[in-house]
């Protein structure tokens, strides 16, 4: 536990842009000691990933270059090292795992091939020993059925399993330093908890120093011994984790920590008088056919949503939570008629079942959707003003100068200046783009907005602002929201009621505080216990162990057993 393994001093990196060189890392310095975890925390554009790539010698060439400073690994200076010498260090002495486990493995090679290739390159073992070593590594990362996994290809593994394989590869040669660049950001919260546990355990067993890069202050609190907060490529503050959370010195650190949503700290929701029902859903099911065979017949069905019922009143926010694949986004799409569905959906009292595109058009005015990726949901070749105006034109609600006035009003409404109307999406930041999307959704004065992970792609400070905007709109117009999210802390900020979904069915629903403070279903508890809490003093709760989730795919004619919800308290219902 003694001795510094990695010393970074005065590290600067420049990126070539069309408008000249831009400094993305400016005089960064830190020490990483054996066996400790140092977190580099910051929002997007802070240069935290650049730091990792600079240490690995993997900065994209020729756009990026190190313009000064030093990175010392033990006695070896890494800046300016030759390619051949660097190769011997990568994974052997400094290893790295990445954010996207889904794309970080070669799809054409088996797990075993990808593991042994690393071992053999660094001569960690002989060719004959390699398969046994590979198996051992998979056992070390606690992958289930390791013998079978060796023969599998990446696409046959889940995101969490792939990240375990990545960790196994990274630890193949027992490196001194492990760099983890947002290793759990793309994973579900329960899987994230398992992976973080694993990294902690491996670190204990091997004494590896971990450089953890994250935007999530919850992860920082759970993992870090010390923290370096970065902003615009510069260090803002560096301190042991307890100090950062207890007494942040810099203004930026204070702001950042204040913006982090913390589970259990949201103010109580105002009591809402029972409004008019905007949306009544009964027994909604969505199934996708799986075809196959000689005549391409339906062989099986994916039961994405199975018999879900709920209602949302005017001015109310219902949050739909659950992990990826639980069917929460599918419900949003079904409401807008974007996927075929069964059951009953009434919007403002109108039954939409069996409606064709023409009769659905007025219904769409009442329900609008805001998607997860603010950039991808805008047309990059159309001005943002035109995109906000488009729904009004399609529905023939305004034209000429009236149209212009209304779009200007919408821009002001979401906190953008009307001068920006003539610009294109690439000229905006992520948060601004999401504001444009919200303006577009508001243009038809809908009664209900389906917000599908609408703030998940945003930095925390921006996230807080967008959530405030949504709240403001709700307070003023009495809009109803269906808020789809995987993030429990965000849900707590906005929801009046919460519905927890698993494998297409509701397992628990009730008022916000009832579900979050007194969760009754085992799955809800597991979800809540897995949420990383931005408080380094907190005792980590005993993890509720993983259960296999099961599959939503059933042969034709069969289906999952319908869960029955039992009312255990007023408006608090739990699957039995």
């Amino acid at each position, binding site marked *: 536990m003694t001795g510094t393994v990695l010393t970074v001093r005065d590290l600067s990196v420049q990126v070539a842009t069309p408008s000249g060189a831009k400094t993305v890392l400016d005089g960064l310095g830190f020490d990483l000691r054996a066996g400790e975890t140092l977190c580099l925390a910051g929002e997007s554009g802070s240069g935290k990933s650049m730091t990792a790539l600079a240490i690995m010698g993997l900065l994209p060439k020729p756009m990026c270059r190190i313009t000064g400073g030093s990175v010392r690994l033990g006695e070896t200076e890494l800046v300016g090292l030759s390619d051949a010498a660097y190769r011997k260090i990568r994974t*052997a002495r400094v290893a790295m795992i*990445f954010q996207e486990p889904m794309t970080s493995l*070669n799809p054409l090679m088996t797990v075993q091939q990808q593991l042994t290739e690393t071992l053999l390159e660094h001569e960690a073992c002989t060719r004959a020993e390699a398969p046994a070593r590979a198996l051992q590594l998979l056992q070390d990362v606690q992958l289930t059925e390791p013998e079978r996994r060796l023969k599998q290809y990446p*696409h046959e593994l889940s995101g969490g399993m792939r990240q375990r394989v990545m960790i196994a590869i990274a630890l193949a040669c027992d490196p001194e330093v492990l760099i983890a660049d947002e290793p759990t950001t793309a994973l579900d919260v329960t899987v994230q908890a398992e992976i973080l546990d694993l990294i902690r355990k491996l670190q204990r067993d091997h004494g590896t120093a971990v450089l953890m890069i994250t935007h999530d202050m919850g992860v920082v609190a759970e993992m870090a011994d010390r923290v370096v907060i970065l902003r615009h490529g510069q260090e803002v503050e560096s301190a042991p984790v307890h100090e950062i959370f207890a007494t942040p010195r810099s203004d930026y650190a204070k702001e950042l920590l204040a913006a982090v949503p913390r589970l259990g700290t949201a103010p109580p929701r105002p009591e809402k008088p029972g409004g008019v029902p905007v949306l009544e859903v009964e027994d909604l099911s969505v199934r996708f056919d799986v075809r196959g065979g000689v005549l391409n017949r339906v062989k099986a069905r994916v039961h994405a949503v199975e018999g879900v019922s709920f209602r949302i009143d005017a001015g109310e926010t219902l949050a739909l939570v659950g992990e990826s694949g639980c069917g929460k986004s599918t419900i949003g799409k079904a409401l807008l008629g974007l996927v075929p569905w069964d059951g009953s959906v009434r919007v403002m009292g109108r039954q939409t079942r069996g409606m064709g595109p023409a009769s659905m058009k007025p219904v769409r005015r009442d329900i609008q959707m805001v998607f997860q990726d603010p950039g991808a949901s805008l047309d990059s070749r159309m001005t943002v003003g035109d995109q906000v105006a488009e729904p009004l034109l399609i529905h023939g609600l305004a034209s000429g100068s009236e149209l212009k006035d209304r779009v200007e009003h919408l821009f002001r409404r979401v906190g953008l200046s009307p001068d920006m109307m003539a610009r294109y999406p690439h000229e905006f930041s992520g948060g601004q783009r999401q504001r444009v999307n919200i303006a577009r959704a508001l243009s038809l004065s809908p009664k209900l907005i389906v917000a599908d992970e609408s703030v998940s792609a945003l930095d925390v400070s921006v996230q807080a602002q967008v959530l405030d905007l949504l709240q403001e709109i709700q307070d003023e117009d009495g809009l109803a929201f269906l808020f789809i999210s995987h993030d429990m802390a965000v849900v707590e900020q906005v929801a009046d009621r919460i519905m927890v979904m698993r494998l297409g069915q509701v397992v628990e629903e009730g008022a916000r505080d009832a579900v979050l403070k007194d969760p009754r279903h085992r799955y809800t508890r597991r979800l809540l216990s897995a949420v990383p809490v931005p408080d380094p003093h907190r005792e980590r709760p005993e993890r509720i162990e993983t259960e296999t989730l099961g599959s939503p795919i059933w042969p034709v004619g069969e289906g999952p057993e319908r869960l029955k919800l039992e009312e255990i308290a007023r408006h608090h219902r739990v699957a039995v």
Partner: protein
Amino acid sequence: MQAYLVRRLFESALILLGITLVTFILLYLVPADPARQIAGRSATAETVQNIRDQLGLNDPFFVQYWRYLTALFQGDMGRSYLQRAEVSELIAARLPASLLLMVAAIVTELIFGLTIGIIAALRRNRPADHGLMIFSFVSISAPQFVIGILLLYIFAVKLGWFPIGGYGTFAHVVLPAITLGFLGAGWYSRMMRSSMIDVLGQDFVRTAQAKGLAKGRIILRHVIPNAVLPIIAMIGIDIGLFMSGIVVVESVYGWPGIGQLAWQAIQRVDIPVIMGVTMVSATAIVLGNLLADLVAPMIDPRIKTK
């Protein structure tokens, strides 16, 4: 797998049936009269009419089509109007030469196309890349008969390295194969280049670098296999392209394949031969695509044959 193969073969048969109908309609609508071709310029109208009767050309369209189809199902492709031989015999005699030329051309275009594409991608935006891309642009734009005559002039007439025309030895194949593969090489080099550049930017290539693998191994083991995937599907489509090229190339080099047979038949409105050649080419294209679809899952484990 077996069920998949049965389904695909069944589909292929349906496609070929459709092609017989379309080709038959087109030939029926052609204003040229095969009977007049057979009878010659000086024949009387009566003679022509007799020949039409003999060939059954005066029957209604569907009677003619049905007659052709029932014969075809019994393996009878008809008799050439002008060559006094069975169409199947004419084709059988010439098909091996054309198949040889096609295989040689595929090998040529893959070797040139992939190599050029790989080098260009690895030297992206450098002089070598620009040079190779100009070359590929030229090869896509240049008409095959020009390339053929040019190669013939330089390498056969002036340098004398290869025979001027004919069929028989390896040396005979080289120039026709290059001429036929030239266009494809240009296409493949462009596709391979962009596919390589795409794969080079993927996360798993960064993982491979982070593993400390040697550059050569990363390129050979991780980049190229992934970059080749989109090309495989193209090879099937390519066979269709070859069928038109083969007519030109076989004429330039005097190659005794079905391209020449088709050319003569079209000039003289020898309908049974045109139908026969069309059916053989269509079968080749359909089978080529099927083959490409069967090979793809062997290379890419994510593709399942459904």
